[in-house]
């Protein structure tokens, strides 16, 4: 087991009422359990606002958890000191949705890549080590070495996303979280990046947590899919199984919208209240029911 999320919660207060005391909460991540095995591709799907990105940031501990624990390689990272946390972040890297704003505009690509290397003194002793690794990574994502002295604004969206991926691999992470990493790209580049990710997984033995709202993309890349709705995982199954046999009403709705472009009109709201829990209906296929 590489990563284990245990009952994690994150509520955002909505200010209001007397003296801006929080009266209600957005339950962005509400009691989520998820296990990720090494070498596994797991995808998190769901509509915008369902808490996918919050979950990704919680895994990196870029914001504090409200409750629950995150076990990585047998250690509870929520109890880490700041120094240990930085070490942990080297093992887990995040690729953001928007390749236009996630690269510092003042840094050349070479500097972007090298900066992360300074955090790993063991593997990158000399300048030539660094240069060799940078070139290797750039080749791996299909970019040319002469692009290294350019600044982010001189690249197209697809190229930037490749840079962001190459950058995230600098520290040899075990887990790569791709937060809508291909969503802002057009379909052809999307396809290229997906192929690239598959290849990188073989070459570097990565584990992916792939976050997307796009089921077509998810189907191509993931082994398992977790469907998220209003801060909860409502269904979790192997990719084929989920597409063949969706059990939860929200999953059905999502699939019909994504595959057939048909939206189902809800006759009643989907219940994700406290009384519901994730149950293994068919071996390996979990669903949230009352």
């Amino acid at each position, binding site marked *: 087991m590489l990563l284990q999320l245990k009952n994690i919660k994150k509520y955002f207060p909505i200010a209001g009422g007397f003296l801006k005391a929080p009266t209600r909460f957005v339950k962005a991540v509400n009691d989520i359990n998820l296990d990720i095995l090494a070498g596994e591709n797991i995808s998190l799907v769901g509509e915008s606002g369902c808490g996918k990105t919050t979950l990704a940031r919680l895994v990196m501990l*870029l914001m504090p958890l409200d409750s629950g624990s995150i076990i990585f390689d047998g250690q509870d990272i929520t109890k880490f000191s700041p120094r240990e946390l*930085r070490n942990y972040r*080297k093992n887990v890297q995040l690729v953001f949705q928007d390749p236009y704003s996630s690269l*510092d*505009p003042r840094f050349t690509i070479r500097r972007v890549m090298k900066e992360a290397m300074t955090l790993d003194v063991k593997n990158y002793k000399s300048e030539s080590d660094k240069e060799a690794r940078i070139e290797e990574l750039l080749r791996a994502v299909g970019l040319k070495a002469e692009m290294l002295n350019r*600044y982010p*604004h001189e690249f197209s969206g697809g190229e930037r996303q490749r840079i962001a991926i190459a950058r995230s691999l600098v*520290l040899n992470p075990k887990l790569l979280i791709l937060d809508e990493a291909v969503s802002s790209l057009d379909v052809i580049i999307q396809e290229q990046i997906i192929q690239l990710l598959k290849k990188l997984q073989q070459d570097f033995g990565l584990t992916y947590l792939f976050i997307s709202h796009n089921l077509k993309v998810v189907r191509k890349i993931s082994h398992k899919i977790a469907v998220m709705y209003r801060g909860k995982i409502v269904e979790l199954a192997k990719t084929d199984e989920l597409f063949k046999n969706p059990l939860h009403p929200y999953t059905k709705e999502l699939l019909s919208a994504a595959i057939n472009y048909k939206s189902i009109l809800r006759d009643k709201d989907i219940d994700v209240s406290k009384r519901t829990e994730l149950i293994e209906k068919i071996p390996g296929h979990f669903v949230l029911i009352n």
Partner: protein
Amino acid sequence: MLKYIFKRVAIMIPMLLGIALLTFMLMRLSPGNYLDTIRLDPQISKETIAYYERLFQLDKPLIYQYVHWVLNLLRGEFGYSFYYNVPVVQIISWRLFNTFILAFASFLMTWLIAIPLGIWAAVNRNRKTDQAIQFFSYVFLSWPSFFVAMILLFWASQTGILPLGGMHSPNYENLNLWQQFVDLVKHLAIPTIALSIGSIAALQKIMRGNMLEALGQKYILTARAKGLPENKVIYRHALRNAINPLITLLGYEFSGLLSGAALIEIICSWPGLGSLMLTAVRSKDIYLVMASMMMGGILFIVGNLLADIFLAKADPRIRYDKR
């Protein structure tokens, strides 16, 4: 880049001539000239006044006077001061130097205090320290600098810790180099603080705002996510991206160095360009005014040019040359 700088310097010349023309017209078209004050004196004969009128060429048409001045400028002559009866350059140069000392001291103090303060406030946003800084910024922003200067002067007169004005003590000539420096710093203290305190408050606010904007960017999250220590995130990524508007501001500050200090110079009787210009304008000492204006104009243009150059150096997205 060199081509661009050359172009900007070339544009300077017509701009400066324009500034000079405007100043000249303003001075000459307003009623009266330097000799009018002398005319009031019954002891001076009409012949003498006519002689001076010819000497200063005040009897010639305006456009002739202006062209004559420009031609002299090409030979490196800024003209004579009517009032002091010496070449303008002589008076201006040491006054300019004094103003520069004061302006530079206040500039250093402002930037050295405001920038770290702004960064600190941004990093500790909405905590008690930040709130305190913002509160005092409002207080100091709403105090006019001359008022601060007066309060400080009053305080100095009561305690006697700092001198009440001027630039040097009477026994300045007898001091050794180190003592002279200390003496100068003591005289500098009040005008510098009066000049800086409002600017610190303003600049701090600008720095804080820019820093907050930069800290909210995605690449800051990226930097944190890749495991960089927080101080590197702040100083390497956030600060570099927050600095752009401040560089532009630096250009304006540079040009404001001379004019901004005038009021304080007069209050603290600092022998700078500001008080000189005031007397020059009032006594219609036209060439002295024009030379001072030229200095201000040059500083303004050079300051903006420097700011643009720094901006291009600091931000790779800004290019002036089309490649």
